[in-house]
C-alpha cells in the first residue's frame, strides 16, 4: 500500500510539473507586458529595462523556465505584480474564504444529495423518483451564475432577507474584529463568542453556498440514485431481505456501501467542479476568495500570481483525487491484497 501511495505521489509531482509548464507557457504568451502593470504610470525605457532585468524577463525563454522551476522547487512563488505581496501570502489570505465556501458546499451536497438519491432509488419509478430526476435534469441546465443572480434577486431584491454580496458587511467587520484562528469566519466568530459577527457572516454565506450547492447537487443525487438502483437489484440485497434485516439497514449499510466507490469518484469530481464553480460564484457574490484572485491575475498578466494559484489549485485537486483513490481501498475489501 505504501508503495502505491509513493507511486501516486511521484506521478502527481510529474503531473504538477506539467501543469506548471503549461501555465508558464500560457502566461508568457499573455499579451501585455507585466512590467508596465507593475511600474504603474509612464515608466521610462530604462525603468522598464531595469525591471525586466530584475525579473529575469530579458533572458531567453528556456532559461526563464528553468529559473522558474528552480524557484518553485524552493517554494518561492514570487511576488504578485498587482498586490506586491508574496503570492503565497496572497493565497493564504484568500484561501480560507474559498475553503469555507467550497467545503460547506461539499458537505451540504453530500448530506442532501445522497439521501435524496437513495430515496429516489428505493422508490424507483414512483412520482417522487420522477420528480427528483426531473429536478436533476433541470438543475444541470441552469448555469451557476444565473442561479446566483436569481437568488440575489429573490432574497435581496424582493425579500430583502439576505445581503447582496461580500463576505461580511464592512461596518460589522470594523466594529467586530475577531481573531483569526482558522480563517473561516463562521468558526472564528463562534470561537470569539461574537454572535453579531457570526450572524452577519452566516447571512452572507447563505446565497453563495446555495448557489454552489444547487449547481452541483443534481449530479450527486442522480449518480447516487442510479448506483443505488443497481445495487438494490443485487442478489445480496435479496438475501438481506430474506433474513428479515430492517429496510433502513439494508439501504444505508448493505446497499449503499456498494455504491461508495463510484460515488466517491463523483464526489471527487464534484470537488473539482466546486473549485471551478467557485470562480463564477465568487465573481457573482464578490466573495474574496481564490477564484476571483486567479481570474484577475490571469486577465491582468499577473503571472506569478496566476501560475502560483493555478499550481496550488491543481495540486489541491490532484490531492483530493488521490485521497478518493485511497478511500477505495478502505471501502472495497476486494481491492486489498490479503
Amino acid at each position, binding site marked *: 500500500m505504501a508503495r502505491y501511495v509513493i507511486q501516486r505521489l511521484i506521478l502527481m509531482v510529474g503531473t504538477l510539473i506539467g501543469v506548471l509548464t503549461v501555465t508558464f507557457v500560457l502566461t508568457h504568451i499573455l499579451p501585455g507586458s507585466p512590467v508596465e502593470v507593475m511600474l504603474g504610470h509612464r515608466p521610462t525605457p530604462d525603468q522598464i529595462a531595469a525591471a525586466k532585468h530584475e525579473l529575469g524577463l530579458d533572458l531567453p525563454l528556456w532559461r526563464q523556465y528553468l529559473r522558474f522551476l528552480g524557484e518553485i522547487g524552493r517554494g518561492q512563488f514570487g511576488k504578485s505584480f498587482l498586490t506586491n505581496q508574496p503570492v503565497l501570502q496572497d493565497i493564504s489570505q484568500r484561501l480560507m474564504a474559498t475553503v469555507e465556501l467550497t467545503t460547506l458546499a461539499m458537505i451540504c451536497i453530500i448530506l442532501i444529495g445522497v439521501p435524496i438519491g437513495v430515496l429516489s432509488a428505493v422508490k424507483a419509478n414512483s412520482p417522487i423518483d420522477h420528480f427528483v430526476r426531473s429536478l436533476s435534469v433541470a438543475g444541470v441546465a441552469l448555469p451557476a451564475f444565473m442561479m446566483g443572480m436569481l437568488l440575489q434577486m429573490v432574497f435581496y431584491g424582493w425579500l430583502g432577507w439576505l445581503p447582496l454580496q461580500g463576505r461580511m458587511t464592512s461596518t460589522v467587520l470594523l466594529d467586530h474584529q475577531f481573531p483569526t484562528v482558522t480563517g473561516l469566519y463562521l468558526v472564528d466568530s463562534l470561537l470569539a463568542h461574537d454572535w453579531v459577527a457570526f450572524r452577519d457572516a452566516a447571512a452572507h454565506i447563505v446565497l453563495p453556498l446555495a448557489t454552489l450547492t444547487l449547481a452541483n447537487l443534481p449530479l450527486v443525487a442522480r449518480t447516487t440514485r442510479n448506483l443505488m438502483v443497481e445495487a438494490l437489484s*443485487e*442478489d*445480496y440485497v435479496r438475501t438481506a431481505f430474506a*433474513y*428479515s434485516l430492517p429496510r433502513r439497514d439494508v439501504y444505508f449499510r*448493505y446497499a449503499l456501501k456498494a455504491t461508495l466507490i463510484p460515488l466517491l469518484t463523483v464526489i471527487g469530481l464534484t470537488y473539482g467542479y466546486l473549485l471551478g464553480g467557485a470562480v463564477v460564484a465568487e465573481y457573482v457574490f464578490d466573495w474574496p476568495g481564490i477564484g476571483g484572485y486567479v481570474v484577475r491575475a490571469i486577465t491582468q498578466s499577473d503571472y506569478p500570481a496566476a501560475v502560483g494559484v493555478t499550481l496550488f489549485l491543481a495540486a489541491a485537486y490532484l490531492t483530493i483525487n488521490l485521497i478518493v483513490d485511497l478511500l477505495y481501498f478502505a471501502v472495497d*475489501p476486494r481491492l486489498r491484497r*490479503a
Partner: protein
Amino acid sequence: MTGSLLEIRDLRIEFPSLERTVKAVRGASLEVAKGEVMGLVGESGSGKSMTALACLGLVPPPGRVTGSVRLDGHEVVGASEAENERLRGAVAAMIFQNPGKALNPFFTLGRQLTDAIARVRVIPRVEAEQAALAALTEVRIGDPKVALHKYPHQVSGGQLQRVMIAMALACRPQLVIADEPTTALDVTIQAQVIVLLRDLAREHGLTVLFITHDLGVVGSLCDRLAVMYAGRVVESGPVDALFASPAHPYTASLLRAVPMLGRGRSVLTQIPGTVPNMAAPPPGCAFHPRCPAAGPRCAAEDPVAKEVAGLRSVACHYPLAAPGAAGEAVAVPVASRAGS
C-alpha cells in the same frame, strides 16, 4: 391439510409491463408435509424460483402475486411486509443459487451471519456470534474461527454455499427452501453439498423444499417430487414412484433425457421444441406442442391437477400408464443410487 408446513394453492405470479405481461407462475399448487424433503423440478423459466420467492413474500416488483401460500398456517400472499418479516428466517429460511452473488462482498462472512442470526432469533450479538461459529462448524467449514473474518471473495464457491447453509440453519427455521444451491458449483463439490444438506436435514428434522433442474440430485435427496412446467405443477408424488412410472408425459420425457451410464446403450432423447414464451403461452395445456402423447383435448382445455393413487397428482388429459400397470419402463437415473 394440517401437517403441511407449506401449502401453495393456485399461485399466480405476473409481471405486467407496458408492452406485455409475463405470467411466470400460472396456478401452481403444492404441499410439503413436516419433515419431508420435497424436490421441485423444472427447466429454466418454469417458474420454480419465483414460486420459492413467493413463499417468503420476496417476489420483486413489479411482480403481482395472487393465490395462497400458507407457511405454518400463516398466509403470505397479501400479508403486510411486517408480518412476512416475522416469517423470514424464523419459519422458513432460504438458500440461494449463486452464493458468490448472494453474499455481500463488502462485509465479512461473520458479520453477515451474525446480523442475520441476531435479527431472526432476536438475541444479542455476542450470542449470535457464538451461534454463527457453531453453525459454521456444523457445515464442516475448514477453520470456522478464521472463516468468520473472511470476505466472500477470499473463499471458494463450495465454502460459500456452506456458509449460506449455515446462515439458514443457524436461524433455526422449520422449513429450508434451497433454490438450486448446487447449480453454480463444480460437480464434485455438488455432491458434497448435497450430502451435507441431507445429513443436516435428518439431524435437525428439517423440512426441505429443494429446487433444481437436475433430476439426479432429486433422486438422491428427496422423498417427494413436484414437476413444474410453464408455471404450473404438472405432476407430484413420491420420488421412487414417479421415477418408476411417471404419469405426465413431460416427466417421462425429462427422465428419458437424463443421460445414464449402465447396462447397454441409452439414447439421449431430446424433448423437441422449446420452452414456451411466458408472455403468450400456448392455449390449453402448455406442454401440448411438444408432447408425444398429445390428444384432441390438449390444445383446447387446460388440464386440472387430479389426485391419483399413492399420494400423487397429475395435470394431464391423457396421463401415461397408471402406476403399477405394465407400461413403458423408465430406467431410474444412476445418481439416485449414489451416496445412500
